[in-house]
Each structure stands twice: as structure tokens, then as C-alpha cells.
């Protein structure tokens, strides 16, 4: 059994991760509201909360709670109701192992954190399939099938790019990778970083990879039949997904908490880098059109996979050369 102090510490860590899980997606969502609006020469929300609509997402949450909770009569009710939870939990767990700062500033320092994150993010697709199939709606099913095809394709470059940086660092632990990171890796691991970011975008089904949702052709894809809190959970999952992918990109390829005065300000650097990547995620949504299904698969198999394999070769070569010398 754990002594009292350790229980307290555990509770503190779980609490901190939960707070991050609840607050960071809202920040990203609000930023998306405002950034997207200004990129389209609009103002975005201006009323809720008074100052520049800062409480818009809180108001949205209140609205979602008030909505009727509808399960279609033809739907497979238990699966339909379970899917939003299954969509949300993997990201919560993933947030727990991403290091925020040097030393012990991480929810749970796992020896093979990288592998854990990759595995758990991959589980999200099960939720998509559950939602798609149980809705008893042809648009939902089409969206789900597109999502499954997309996620299984992009899982490969996603894992390969992450493997490259793990090879470079010689460890699978996320704090270990950040520890081993050096600025010149920015160039050495650049192809892997780009591949990882692109396939990460595809993993969380963000535009330009939102073929499974594609509201101009599939109503709202696998989310068509969802309303109220269950829909809100799916939305929350999408924004936690942005946080997780941004934080992972920052951790693996941008040096995590490295920066001036990293000992005391490491957490700030990590948050800033994550925010910068999240901004790019939003930016791409505004600027780029959706990829067609065949373009999507072509990009994955003919560009990303070969690039990530070449990067693996490069990483191995440089690594061996470093060990030899």
C-alpha cells in the first residue's frame, strides 16, 4: 500500500491532468473561434461573458446540457450511448503521460510512454466505428467507413515517424526523448516531424482530413445522429485530440520544455510550443480545402509512408555514425 504522502501526490497528479483535460481543449476551441473569425475578416463571438466573447464555449456547454438526449429508434442503443465515452477516454489517458516540464513534471512517467500514447490514440477509431454503425444511418455508416480507412492508413506513417525520433533518442520514454533532444534535431528529424504532424492531423480527422465528417456530402458523418451532451463529448474529444497531437509534436520534435531557463520556465516553453502547433492546426483548417478520398489515400501511401521509411534509414545511419565516432 502507498503511504499517505504518495496518495496525496497521486491525487494531485490526477487532478492536474483532469484540469488540463478540461481547460486546454476549451482554450483551443475559443482560439479557434476567434482565429478562424479574424482569418475570415469577421470578429467571431463577441457577447458571451462580456469581453470579446470569452465565455462562448461555456455558453455552448450550457446549451448542450439543455438539449434533448435523442437516441434514434433504429439505433443500437447501448453501443450508441457508449461511443462518446470511448472517444474521450483515450485522449484523457494520453494527456497523463506527456511531460510538461523537466524532472518530475508529468502526470505519470511511463517507461514506454511513446508506445502507450500511440496505442491509446489508435483506440479512438473504435469509438468512431461504434458511433457510425450504431446510429442506423447511411451517412453515419459511410462516414465511419471513411474514418476507419483513413485512420488505419495514417496510423502507419504516424507510428513510423514517432519511431524515428525514438530511435534518435534511444528511448521510448517521453521525458527521456525530451531529455535527449538537441536543437539540431530540428533539421535531422524535420521530415519525420512533418509526417508526424500531417498524419496526426489525419488521426484526429481535422481539416483538410475531415473526409469522414465532410458536412457538404455526409451531413455530419458519424456524428449525424448525435445531439446534446453526447455530441458535446465528441466535440470535446476532437479538441482534446488537437491538444494531444500538438503536445506530442512539441514533445517529440520541438524539444518540449527546452528553452531559456528551462529549469524554472520549462512548463511555459512546453505550453507555448503546444499552443503554436495548435495554432497551425487551426490555420490549416481555415486555409486549405478538404482532401478527396483518393487524394487522401494517395498522400498517405505514396508520400508519407515512403518519406517516413527514408527518415528511419537516415536516423539509423546518423545514429550508427554517432555511436561509431
Amino acid at each position, binding site marked *: 500500500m502507498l503511504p499517505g504522502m504518495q496518495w496525496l501526490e497521486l491525487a494531485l497528479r490526477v487532478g492536474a491532468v483532469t484540469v488540463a483535460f478540461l481547460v486546454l481543449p476549451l482554450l483551443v476551441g475559443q482560439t479557434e473561434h476567434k482565429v478562424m473569425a479574424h482569418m475570415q475578416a469577421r470578429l467571431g463571438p463577441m457577447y458571451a461573458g462580456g469581453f470579446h466573447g470569452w465565455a462562448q464555449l461555456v455558453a455552448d456547454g450550457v446549451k448542450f446540457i439543455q438539449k434533448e438526449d435523442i437516441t434514434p429508434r433504429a439505433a443500437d442503443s447501448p453501443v450508441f450511448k457508449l461511443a462518446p465515452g470511448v472517444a474521450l477516454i483515450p485522449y484523457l489517458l494520453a494527456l497523463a503521460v506527456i511531460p510538461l516540464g523537466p524532472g518530475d513534471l508529468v502526470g505519470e512517467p511511463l517507461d514506454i510512454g511513446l508506445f502507450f500514447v500511440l*496505442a491509446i490514440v489508435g483506440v479512438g477509431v*473504435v469509438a468512431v466505428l461504434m458511433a457510425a454503425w450504431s446510429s442506423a444511418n447511411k451517412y453515419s455508416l459511410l462516414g465511419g467507413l471513411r474514418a*476507419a480507412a483513413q485512420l488505419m492508413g495514417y496510423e502507419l506513417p504516424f507510428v513510423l515517424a514517432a519511431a524515428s525520433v525514438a530511435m534518435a533518442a534511444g528511448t521510448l520514454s517521453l521525458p527521456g526523448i525530451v531529455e535527449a533532444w538537441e536543437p539540431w534535431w530540428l533539421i535531422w528529424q524535420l521530415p519525420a516531424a512533418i509526417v508526424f504532424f500531417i498524419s496526426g492531423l489525419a488521426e484526429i480527422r481535422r481539416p483538410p482530413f475531415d473526409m469522414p465528417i465532410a458536412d457538404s456530402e455526409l451531413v455530419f458523418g458519424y456524428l449525424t445522429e448525435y445531439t446534446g451532451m453526447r455530441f458535446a463529448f465528441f466535440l470535446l474529444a476532437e479538441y482534446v485530440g488537437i491538444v494531444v497531437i500538438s503536445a506530442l509534436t512539441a514533445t517529440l520534435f520541438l524539444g518540449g520544455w527546452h528553452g531559456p531557463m528551462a529549469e524554472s520556465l520549462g512548463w511555459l516553453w512546453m505550453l507555448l510550443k503546444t499552443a503554436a502547433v495548435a495554432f497551425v492546426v487551426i490555420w490549416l483548417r481555415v486555409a486549405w480545402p478538404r482532401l478527396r478520398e483518393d487524394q487522401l489515400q494517395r498522400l498517405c501511401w505514396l508520400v508519407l509512408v515512403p518519406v517516413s521509411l527514408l527518415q528511419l534509414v537516415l536516423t539509423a545511419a546518423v545514429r550508427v555514425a554517432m555511436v561509431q565516432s
Partner: protein
Amino acid sequence: MTVITLADIMFGAVGLVAVGAALAVVSTSHLVRAGLWLVVTLGAIAVEFLLLRAEFVAWVQVLIYVGAIVVLLLFAVMLTKAPIGRSTDLDRPIWPALLVGAGSGLGLATLFAWVYASDGISAPPVGSAEKLGQNIFRDWVLPFEVLSVLLLAALVGAIVLSKKDAKS
């Protein structure tokens, strides 16, 4: 007499979940739900690996089996035929299945109990990635490579099957 620890109890409980879910996989008449029960089974097995301190194997289990294989299976089921509700036309011979399943299960159980009854296994070392890598690529590299040849053969076979035959 060994002391039953919390880990032992959890191991048993999770094992029950795995077996129960596995039974649900083969007994449910909802096709897609069978696939979802498979997720539960494989997830429970991953937890068992965790309880045995084989973290790496556990997460490989999640990544490959839950994240890829079951998804592929569900994908295929949904692509071909995915009715919501019971399917009445399932071809499920109960008795042969029961015989084979129970037979192999009981056989394996007695085999292991018989082999390890007298001498207990010493606590396994933590299944870290490093140890696993050393095992696979140093001690067991030949079986590993043979396995990959098998996979390659399957891959070639899949390509041949899916290629449009010019002659016919």
C-alpha cells in the same frame, strides 16, 4: 502457502472479464457487437499483461489488436453486412464448437497446471522494451525472421488474390 495479494485478485477478476467477453464474442447474435466484445477481451488481456509487468507487450496488444486488427475486422463486417439487432441466419454449430473450445481450454489449463505445479516460476523481470528487443533480436532472431517470411508470403498472396486476373 503463498499470500494472495491485491494484484492476484485483480488478475483473476480481469481474467474473468476476458473470458466472459470472449464467451460473449462467440455467443452473441449481434454481429458487430461480437466485434466490440472482442475489443473488451483483447483489452482485458492487455491489462493482464500490465499486471504481469509486461508493459511493452500490453501496449503492443492495444496498438496492434485493438487499434488495427479489430478495427479491420469491424470495417470488413460493416462493409459487407452489418444489421443492427439479431441475425437469425448465423451458422453456428454449438456442439462441435463447445467440444473443441472446452477441450483445448481445459487441455491447456491442465498442461500448465501440471508443468508448473511442482516448481513455481520466479517473478518475471519487468518487460521493458530494451529486454524485449534484446530477446527478439539476439536470442530469438531466427524464429522472428521466419515469422516475417510468413507475413511476407501472406502479403504476396493477398496481392495475387486481389489482382485482376487477365486470363479469366
